């Protein structure tokens, strides 16, 4: 039985006879550094407060000020939050891109634009609403220096009138955005929003069909970005040493964590910190510190993106062989170096699985939502200490930096567990220990922490050349024994990684396998395939590597399985090919998107239809 919601096909854009309620995308095209973030957030929150499911995606350049930026708010009564290719409602504020933005619209779309841009002449099949922003902003913002920022709030007022967004909600969102401390700024912006609203009411006759209407689709929900959700997960996991080096799109993870830690993780009795955050000199140092801390018994983490992971490669391999826990957040992006650093990608799956030289394999955990960013981050910290190894938490720019609706996070049910750590009493009882000995047959050895007051506690940590007692060796049998135990440990992980989320559709002969943010596009695509093409599909969402038996069962029970990758070379597919038998591999097909934007359902649907027709 499918758990997927059956919904009618969405009406395609075009000339509408009747209103389109709560099912459209608003795109605001501005220049970055112009302060449009506040206006966009207020607009999105106003809709959210009206109970309408929304998602916000910021497409921004690698630049501080002056280059084009687009912020897209998708409004969907069905709760779809994937990127939608089609834009229904454009706010054109950027002279650089205005023409192209307008020409890309489908027939029937609406455009609010800065009057001097003279866009009206471009097309006759879209609805135009010219606004003299400079004229409107002058009376509401006497300080000329602030006008660049405040004029953005005018479009919030204009759009509110055109889409029937309630001004009380705009006001609430605005107050919330500025907080009590910036009441003056809030007043100024509220004046601008009202001026926009009044201008629209006096000037325009609404001709486009798009309309927002209060509904009950967001009750109890929160809005949060994935990076902040991971940060909260880390704090509630009890992280103690946090190391990082700034890199888009991961910087805001630790920045947000610092705010939370400062607020909630000081000893109330002494005021002292129960954590250390270090902005390191580079990613080599940040992973070195995280491993040093993990070795000494801290819950340690670092956060980075692909280029940082490349630099960490040697250390992470060392962490694998020396068996040191650490959690590494990889907020994936396009790269390396310059070249689309502010665009999203699932580009590190294959390289992280095998990172570093020699026979290394690393566990990875893949959240797809803010809720999972929180819960799976806590799991990752537990997992790292249970298995004494570096663990990747894999997100991407889309999940990490964009705003998502989410259910409130559940308080962790299980107590913190530090894994197989021996203390002085244990050592007394055992009379000693072998650091790399497989006592329990699960491949996971016991460790002691520096500072353990016992004359048998110490061991010497080094790379791959050691025997069961952590003594230096270059013997063939010692090396092989250790490698085989590490392989055994990796096999044990399969029973403890977060299981995939499987949705079996009994009528389906095809299935999807995807992870992370591909989830939203794949779920919407399942609906499109059914409604538009009569194709039924099952779906397995991976939440971890190593793979579990669920994946094999899923592939076995379908004729063809589409592996969705947000990269050119099909990294998930490649990883499956490394491990699977030929008859399994023969069933795998590949859907790949690698344009740097969040994956959309249409791309997935079209590719599946194309391949199914073969």
């Amino acid at each position, binding site marked *: 039985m499918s758990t997927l919601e059956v919904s009618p096909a969405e009406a395609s854009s075009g000339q509408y006879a009747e209103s389109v309620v709560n099912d459209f995308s608003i795109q605001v095209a501005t220049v970055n550094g112009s302060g449009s973030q506040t206006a966009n957030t207020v607009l999105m929150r106003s809709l959210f407060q009206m109970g309408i499911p929304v998602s916000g995606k910021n497409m921004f350049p690698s630049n501080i000020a002056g280059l084009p930026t687009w912020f897209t708010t998708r409004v969907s009564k069905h709760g779809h939050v994937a990127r939608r290719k089609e834009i229904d409602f454009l706010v054109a504020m950027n002279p650089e891109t205005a023409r192209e933005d307008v020409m890309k619209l489908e027939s029937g779309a609406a455009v609010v634009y800065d009057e001097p841009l003279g866009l009206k002449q471009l097309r006759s099949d879209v609805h135009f609403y010219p606004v003299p922003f400079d004229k409107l902003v002058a009376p509401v913002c006497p300080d000329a220096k602030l006008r660049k920022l405040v004029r953005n709030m005018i479009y919030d007022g204009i759009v509110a009138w055109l889409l029937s967004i309630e001004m009380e909600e705009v006001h609430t969102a605005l107050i919330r955005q500025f907080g009590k401390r910036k009441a003056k700024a809030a007043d100024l912006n509220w004046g601008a929003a009202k001026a926009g609203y009044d201008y629209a009411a006096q000037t325009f006759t609404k001709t486009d069909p798009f309309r927002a209407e209060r509904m009950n689709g967001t009750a109890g929900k929160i809005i949060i970005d994935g990076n902040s959700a991971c940060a909260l997960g880390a704090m509630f996991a009890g992280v103690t040493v946090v190391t990082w080096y700034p890199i888009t799109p991961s910087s805001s993870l630790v920045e947000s964590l610092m705010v939370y830690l400062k607020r909630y993780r000081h000893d109330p009795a002494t005021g002292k910190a129960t954590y250390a955050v270090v902005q390191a000199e580079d990613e080599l140092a940040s992973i070195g510190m995280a491993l*040093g801390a993990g070795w000494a018994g801290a819950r*340690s983490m670092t956060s980075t993106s692909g280029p940082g992971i490349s630099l960490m490669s040697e250390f992470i391999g060392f962490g694998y062989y020396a068996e040191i826990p650490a959690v590494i957040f990889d907020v994936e992006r396009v790269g390396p170096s310059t070249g689309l650093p502010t665009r999203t990608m699932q580009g590190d799956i294959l390289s992280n699985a095998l990172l570093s030289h020699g026979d290394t394999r690393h566990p990875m955990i893949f959240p797809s939502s803010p809720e999972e960013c929180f819960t799976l981050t806590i799991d990752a910290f537990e997992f790292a200490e249970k298995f004494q190894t570096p663990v990747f938490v894999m997100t991407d720019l889309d999940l990490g930096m964009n705003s998502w609706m989410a259910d409130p996070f559940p308080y962790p049910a299980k107590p913190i567990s530090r894994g197989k750590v021996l203390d002085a009493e244990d050592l007394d009882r055992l009379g000693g220990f072998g650091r790399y000995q497989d006592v329990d047959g699960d491949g996971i050895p016991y460790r002691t922490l520096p500072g353990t007051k016992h004359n048998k506690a110490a061991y010497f940590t080094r790379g791959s050349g050691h025997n069961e007692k952590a003594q230096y060796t270059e013997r063939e049998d010692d090396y092989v024994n250790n490698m085989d135990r590490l392989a055994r440990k990796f096999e044990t992980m399969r029973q403890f990684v977060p299981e995939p989320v499987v949705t079996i559709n009994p009528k389906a002969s095809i299935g999807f396998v995807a992870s992370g943010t591909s989830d939203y596009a794949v779920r919407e695509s399942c609906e499109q395939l059914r409604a538009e093409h009569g194709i039924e599909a099952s779906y397995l969402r991976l939440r971890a590597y190593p793979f579990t038996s669920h994946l094999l069962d899923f592939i076995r029970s379908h004729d063809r399985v589409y592996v969705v990758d947000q990269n050119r070379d099909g990294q998930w597919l490649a990883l499956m090919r490394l491990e699977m038998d030929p008859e399994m591999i023969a069933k795998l097909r590949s859907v790949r998107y690698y344009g740097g934007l969040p994956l959309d359902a249409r791309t997935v649907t079209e590719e599946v239809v194309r391949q199914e027709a073969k």
Partner: protein
Amino acid sequence: MSTATIPPPPKKTNRIGLEVVNYRGGKTTLCAGCGHNSISERVVECFYELGIEPTGVAKFSGIGCSSKSPAYFLGMSHGFNSVHGRMPSVATGALLANRNMLGLGVTGDGDTASIGIGQFMHLVRRNMPLMYIIENNGVYGLTKGQFSATADIGSTAKGGSPNELPPFDCCALALKWGATFVARSFSGDKKQLQAIIKAAIGHSGLSVIDVISPCVTFNDHEGSTKSYGYMKEHEAVLHELDYVPFFEDISVEIAEGEVRDVTMHDGSHLRIRKLDRDFDPTDRLAALAALEEAETKEEVLTGVLYVNTHKPTFVDLLNLSDEPLASLPQDMLRPSSLVLDEVMEQLR
């Protein structure tokens, strides 16, 4: 069964009841005569004599002959032989996790001044509480004799080719950018090196100890400026050093102007006896000037160049809890469900 057994002579122990053997490590695999072995011996003696609890010490190293040596001393201490040039980061992380550990880093000139210069400089900048011994021989031993970044201009390799680039002076770098204990010594000078290591143990911030430690296999020939022979002729000893640990009586009268006492963090005293020059080891600029002067005169200046017992360490700056982060209980680490509710409410 004899009734007339002679009781064995009482074993010699230190103030915490341990024997010197408790401070030893595995058998060295370095070359006979290697300066690094002498340094290992000094470490054993100093930690034994001061009665340091070995389980409270953590050893860190990078890669190279020097970095292998922590396996040859303090076998009862945890050790971390990390990756090339990156020991400072590992030590930093570990000591933040457990601020109660006494950190001892051992590195080489390649590990610090070539591949590791970046991490070294940032370690210095943070004044991380760590004792950082550079076993400096100017060459890479394990890869058979290439120059490192501390090799002097004109110093020749074993095959005769001269080094053409100027050296990094790790003491000058450490002085300039924030280390709070800076010393240079020679592996062959037992007494001086002992006093320096002991003083570093009693120091609360970062101590950088650059020890000229000749490589008998690849850099002990005529033409080398890091050989035993060169040091014999070019070492300029800055002052005579004694170390009086906090648990010993310091009642000996000292003549005015001849001796200067520096009180270390743990209450021990570094006693500095003037030789042929006036030198104030709390004057950073004077230390830098002395290094410059020595360089012009082709001297290797040894002794304690700088001590600053006041500057806050990185651990102080982070306002870390007194209890090590690694052993904090769950109720200190996981905020209550009320906190989660509060955060969720703010996001609604």
